[in-house]
């Protein structure tokens, strides 16, 4: 079971995979071109639709790129709330992935528990942003909704419920269950050198022992909250699972920290005019890894070029190294371990 439109052409010797050719191109939507035809302010709503899971991080990265190009200073409160929403999207993305991963190995009850825990996070998103996944809350110059003190308390309360549920169901299962270990330990090996060489990003890179996370650059409010990447050194499917599980807990801590450190003040500044002539590159850490936005302004309300490099594109070459040598039955598990998002890759 693979919930993504990627075609992997496998060459087999008995049950062992000896070669693999990926074929993509089934869901190209022309979003980059649409981004050139749209006014730059409306592009926020367009880039959110590149991915249905990490949509807020797309909007955040695009907004920060335009803000950098237009030299706009975003109020600190807006940066902290952006961090909260970005981390909420990371938690629900990792839980969705873990559920699908469990389903791929036939572990239906873990799938249910993951999605049950994810529901609490989606409720927080709906309560704070107005919508569950595609939030439309980030705009050029700040954000559109504030999280007041009462709401922050409610968020903390829901996050403690979430932690209790995770501690009692998902975590002990992932750490102790022999079925999961049998299906993941030692499968889809990727060494530190290979991960670096092939340009892996996100939990795949960190699962192979490379401490690299774009949040270390301190965009949004990561500089103020402080951030240390989570690293596992085994480089197999289990290590990648543990990285993501530990990141769920880390994201919860980051949200709580951001809510307590959040300064008072405005949540947005009025941005007048159009992006000036010039280019800008901005990077952000999505749940799946590093996303790169390149924009080129020309002084009008339309951009000359909008280019997006999404993490799954960078993670396909490592996948092609992991697959040869594995058993046919392990292909879904290894493919899902990179958390593929082909809709992002093709845009």
């Amino acid at each position, binding site marked *: 079971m693979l919930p993504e439109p990627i075609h992997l052409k496998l060459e087999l010797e008995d049950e062992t995979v000896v070669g693999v050719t990926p074929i993509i191109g089934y869901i190209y939507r022309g979003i980059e071109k649409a981004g050139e035809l*749209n006014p730059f302010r*409306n592009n926020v*709503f*367009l880039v959110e639709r590149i991915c249905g899971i990490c949509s807020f991080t797309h909007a955040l990265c695009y907004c920060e790129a335009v803000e950098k190009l237009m030299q706009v200073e975003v109020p600190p409160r807006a940066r902290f709330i952006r961090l909260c929403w970005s981390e909420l999207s990371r938690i629900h993305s990792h839980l969705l992935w873990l559920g699908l991963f469990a389903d791929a190995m036939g572990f239906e009850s873990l799938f249910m528990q993951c999605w049950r825990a994810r529901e609490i996070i989606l*409720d927080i998103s*709906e*309560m*704070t*942003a*107005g*919508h569950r996944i*595609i939030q*439309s809350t980030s705009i050029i110059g700040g954000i*559109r*909704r504030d999280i007041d003190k009462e709401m922050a308390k409610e968020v903390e309360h829901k996050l403690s419920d979430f932690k209790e549920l995770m501690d009692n169901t998902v975590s002990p299962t992932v750490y102790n269950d022999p079925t999961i270990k049998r299906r993941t330990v030692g499968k889809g090996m990727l060494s530190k050198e290979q991960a670096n060489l092939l340009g892996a990003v996100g939990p795949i890179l960190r699962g192979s022992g490379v401490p690299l996370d774009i949040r270390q650059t301190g965009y949004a409010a990561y500089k103020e909250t402080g951030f240390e990447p989570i690293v596992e050194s085994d480089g197999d499917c289990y290590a990648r699972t543990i990285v993501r599980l530990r990141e769920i807990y880390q994201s919860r801590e980051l949200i709580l920290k951001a809510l307590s450190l959040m300064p008072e003040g405005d949540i947005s500044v009025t941005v007048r005019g159009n992006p000036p002539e010039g280019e800008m590159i901005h990077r952000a850490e999505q749940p799946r890894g590093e996303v790169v936005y390149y924009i080129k302004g020309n002084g009008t309300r339309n951009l000359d070029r909008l280019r997006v490099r999404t993490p799954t594109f960078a993670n396909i070459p490592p996948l092609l190294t992991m697959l040869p040598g594995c058993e046919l039955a392990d292909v879904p598990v290894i493919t899902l371990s990179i958390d593929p998002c082909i809709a992002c890759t093709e845009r």
Partner: protein
Amino acid sequence: MPWMLPTIWKNLFSRPVTRRYPFKDIREPFSGYRGKLHFDMEKCNLCSACAQLCPSNAIVVDKEAKTLKYNPFACIYCATCVEACPRKAITMDTHYSPPATVKSEETCRP
């Protein structure tokens, strides 16, 4: 697996945790939810600020025919129009548009 028996026993006699939508309503949405759009045509002066800013072109204002056409199936419920309206004529409630068999437009007249 004897430790599973209490759970199985509990599930056998407890009510379903899912709701029978659309026969029963879903849980009440949160107060800030961006749901259905409502146009107060007594306040609207067809200035078309909403139509100009709408990212999905879901609102079309015809000043000659004095109509405002709104397509709820093109709308992305981003609330840009609600914020842009100088007369506060557009409001959102907390329920999403129900599913329909025909994609129809709403025509509003002052």
